[in-house]
């Protein structure tokens, strides 16, 4: 596969996996406005995934289609960040009375969209014109995602004692997963080399500024990093992606010859 196709799949997998997760709140949100807002975020992400998979299918040629790429690739072929496949619950037991924790959802959307405003901004200059066009469209969407999640991060951090504790726990849980953003992967380096991709490590200072600024406003403490750096973008995932994909792909795979 070409470097460009691999890079497009990495971006598409990110979008589809987080889109799938965000949609899980549909009908179950804390207030109807949030059901709508998260459905909107999900819809944007699925839309981005479609454009990216379509472009990957063009690059790959043959019988590749957006749905073949989304529905008929197995777990280790997915190149999304591990952060995005985690369920909506905090690792810190004791706060999470329910299996869906809105604080976790908000923190993840914040950490990821803070990265993607920078990535999409830079990718507007991609040498792949289609990707540059997708980036321009996605940038507008992700700016809204960042505003939405940042506003809630502050509300929850600077809200009640309980909400502060919950969102801090979610932050402590999720922040280590962002280390994956800054590691090298052969897919990314190849795309950077051809001018198609952006060097994510070069965006780190800007991301830190965005994140630290919001955390300060939210009165949250950024945890020191120690430990394990995930490798989802290299195809090495957590135990959660398998369940997500088996549900997502179940119907499509039960009817491999069907058109929907």
């Amino acid at each position, binding site marked *: 596969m070409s470097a460009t196709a691999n890079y497009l799949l990495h971006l598409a997998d990110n979008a589809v996996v987080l889109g799938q997760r965000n949609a899980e709140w549909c009908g179950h949100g804390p207030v109807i406005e*949030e059901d709508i807002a998260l459905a909107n975020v999900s819809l944007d992400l*699925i839309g981005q995934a479609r454009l990216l998979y379509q472009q990957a299918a063009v690059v790959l040629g043959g019988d590749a289609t957006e749905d073949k790429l989304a529905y008929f690739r197995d777990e280790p072929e997915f190149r999304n960040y591990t952060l995005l496949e985690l369920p909506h619950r905090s690792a810190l037991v004791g706060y999470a009375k329910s299996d869906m924790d*809105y604080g976790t959802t908000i923190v993840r959307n914040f950490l990821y969209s803070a990265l993607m405003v920078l990535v999409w901004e830079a990718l507007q200059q991609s040498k792949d014109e289609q990707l540059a066009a997708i980036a321009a469209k996605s940038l507008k969407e992700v700016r809204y995602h960042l505003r939405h999640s940042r506003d809630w991060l502050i509300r929850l951090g600077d809200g*009640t004692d309980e909400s502060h504790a919950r969102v801090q726990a979610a932050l402590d849980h999720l922040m280590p997963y962002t280390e994956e953003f800054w590691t090298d992967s052969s897919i990314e380096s190849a795309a950077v080399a051809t001018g198609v991709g952006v060097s994510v490590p070069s965006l780190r200072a800007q991301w830190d500024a965005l994140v630290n600024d919001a955390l300060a406003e939210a009165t949250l403490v950024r945890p020191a990093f120690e430990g394990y750096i995930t490798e989802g973008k290299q195809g090495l995932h957590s135990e959660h992606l398998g369940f997500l994909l088996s549900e997502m792909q179940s119907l499509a795979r039960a009817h491999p010859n069907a058109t929907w």
Partner: protein
Amino acid sequence: PELMAKFDARIDADGRIEPQDWMPDAYRKTLVRQISQHAHSEIVGMLPEGNWISRAPSLKRKAILIAKVQDEGGHGQYLYSAAETLGVSRADLLDALHSGKAKYSSIFNYPTLNWADVGTIGWLVDGAAIMNQVPLCRCSYGPYSRAMIRVCKEESFHQRQGYEALLVMMRGTDEQKAMVQDSVNRWWWKCLAMFGPPDADSPHSAQGMRWGIKRVSNDDLRQKFIDATVPQAKVLGITLPDPDLKWNEERGHYDYGQIDWDEFWTTVNGNGPCNKERLSTRVKAHNDGQWVRDAALAHARKQQQRAMKEAA
């Protein structure tokens, strides 16, 4: 009495009543009941279709479905707003839903059992809802009639999308066709019941008609729905599960079989297959979200206090 006369005159002239206008208490109560029931239906109605979002068989269908469920949330939101113009709070309306006092459309107490149900709900359930709702676009209460204009527009779009999804499936594999037929078999009679009991047994109709809140009778709407749907079913290539369904030249309408009203009332009275589950899902979402709403409120208060301190 003078106010009453003015109100009656406005109604008779097919004019609109607005929030600031005087209105009889019974009119207000009837509207609150009807609008909130409709809002609740939109919110609960997100669940049966939402059940298939994670498994939608293509990204395009997934996007369409999310957008549709999102629209339902939007309808709920502005119907709650319309109800609020009558002096009730959303919190009170939700309490009434969660305690089981308020009703929502009984159709959502049936399960979605295969992917075709998503299409069928668009085609038949939304189709029946539109039949019920189009007359309400001319309803006498301004905010409600304006909300219904927007709702109906979007629902019509959903209906076409649902029908189109079924058409694609009917052109597909045998399994896909079987899914559609199975789905229509399960939903058809339930959709006919959505128009409510026969006119003879319908308690609220007369007063509702008088006030321009209800504009066409249950049986007339049901007939209209059947007459519109039978040709669509033919194009689709599925069989509607009613052996008595046939064109009556004399009446200029389709005749149809007996609706199982016992089943309808059982479900309305809380004992359908999913009543408890739908309600408890909503209650759980509300309870689980309490800390989030509390946080938003606490933060807003802190912001306000900080602003006041700065101003002082």
